[in-house]
């Protein structure tokens, strides 16, 4: 990896070296390094780009890192990753994608991740996106499809750190009995960037639950669109909370929709968009910070 690629790696993985455990590195549309373990088997797909990851039942406290780097400008990379997670597993998957592009060409990464999660499993999925370089066309489109078995939990943290000119994230999930999906989304856009985020969650199982919390900051002339639909088809609980800060001339659109198709569903949505609270700025200024320093601390905290 060159210096730029290393920077992307460090930021998306929050690591400087290759971690222990299963690992699959993709650089410029090619699989660059791959490591399976006894319980986590990574197989290259035959028909299309991407991998199948088989996580055996009863796998405990293992991790899988999946960094993707696009440093060749103008590259369009689509990758299909399927995760088959067995019963009674406890696993952490860290994926991340970073683009570097100094040119006028468009770099695009489409990551289509499908989760097939068995019963009684706990999965934590972390996804970080970043784009660097002077180029204005750096696109990232993560699509996540989820099937959650009985009594299983999937916890997702998805984070768009900075520099991505366009992103369109789509998340679709079907929840089984007593399963729970927890999503935390953090998106920061600036300049003329545009980020779209769309969730479609079907609470099919008895006592399934979903909690989505989205926190976003839009600066300069950037635009963000958030749409979600929580569909209650059984006795279930769903909660969407959207909290946005807009600065400068940014625009933000939020449509958290809830659809109750069963009288035992409890669905809640909350959405707030606004400037940084004036009194928060004031408080920090009384501690001696100027307005810009105060804004920075508030935004960093908000997105941390």
């Amino acid at each position, binding site marked *: 990896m060159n210096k730029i690629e290393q920077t992307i790696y460090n930021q998306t993985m929050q690591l400087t070296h290759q971690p222990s455990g299963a690992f699959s590195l993709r650089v410029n549309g090619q699989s660059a390094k791959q490591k399976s373990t006894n319980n986590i088997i990574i197989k290259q797909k035959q028909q299309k780009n991407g991998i199948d990851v088989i996580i055996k039942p009863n796998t405990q406290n293992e991790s899988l890192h999946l960094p993707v780097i696009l440093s060749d400008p103008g590259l369009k990379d689509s990758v299909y990753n399927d995760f088959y997670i067995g019963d009674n597993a406890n696993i952490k998957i860290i994926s991340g994608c970073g683009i570097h592009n100094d040119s006028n060409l468009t770099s695009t990464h489409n990551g289509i991740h499908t989760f097939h999660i068995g019963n009684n499993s706990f999965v934590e999925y972390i996804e970080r996106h970043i784009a660097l370089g002077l180029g204005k066309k750096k696109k990232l489109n993560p699509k996540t499809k989820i099937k959650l078995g009985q009594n299983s939990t999937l916890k997702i943290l998805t984070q768009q750190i900075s520099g991505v000119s366009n992103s369109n994230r789509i998340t679709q999930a079907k929840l089984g009995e007593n399963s729970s999906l927890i999503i935390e989304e953090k998106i920061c856009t600036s300049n003329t960037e545009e980020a779209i985020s769309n969730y479609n969650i079907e609470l099919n199982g008895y006592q399934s639950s979903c909690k989505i919390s989205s926190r976003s900051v839009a600066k300069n002339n950037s635009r963000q669109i958030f749409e979600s639909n929580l569909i209650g088809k059984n006795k279930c609980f769903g909660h969407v909370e959207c909290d946005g800060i807009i600065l400068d001339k940014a625009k933000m659109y939020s449509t958290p929709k809830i659809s109750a198709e069963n009288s035992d569903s409890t669905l809640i949505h909350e959405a707030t968009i606004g400037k940084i609270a004036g009194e928060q700025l004031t408080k*920090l*200024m009384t501690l*001696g910070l100027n307005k810009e320093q105060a804004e920075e601390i508030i935004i960093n905290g*908000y997105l941390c």
Partner: protein
Amino acid sequence: MIKINNLSYSVKNLNNEKKDILKNLSINFLPGKITAITGSNGSGKSTLIKTIMGILKPDYGTIFFKDINITDFSITERAKLGISVAFQQPITFKGIKIKQLLEVAGAKSFNDMCLCLSKVGLCAKDYINRYYDSNLSGGEAKRIELAMCLAKNGEVFLFDEPEAGIDLWSVDNLVSLIKNLKDKTIIIVSHQQKILEIADEILILNDNGYEIGPQNIMLNKIKPIQTCGVLGDQK
């Protein structure tokens, strides 16, 4: 230390009529002295604190810090000069740890943090890694608001009802905390008898204006109100 001259502040109500909140206040807050401000709800106590801190701009009048005219100074400039404030209602954040806020305020080490927090009756190890957000109880947030003000330090301390929301056991601690700042200029909004008793001067704000004088004289004037148990209108 802090000298206000002919300070006036008014707001426009819903019918766009002018309503005076502070009217022609001239007061000299001396170094090493504690001035307690009391008066009925809505009489303008917090307004006065915010005006001194630069959060509200007076319609008229001047504010001096020593011999510097700070009337047009920003909040940040006043903070840097040495004015510290603890608000009546603590302002919380999202995702900011208590530790970070104490650092911003001026605490340089774990020891500094420990000192400020223990003065408000909190154990540093239980709190510094917690977020200063709405999950804290009202009393905890209030104590941390005070701790930040102590970490910030300075020559002038503005406390707006520091006792509100703090359990009774702590009132004595609060009194000693204030007493320990003895060489500073302290302006403290309070309805608490024990705090009024340690004040050198008491300022009473009411609808008709204000009255300031030595504690022993002023205390008698507010006694009837204090003993009736409610912070009602002063007749």
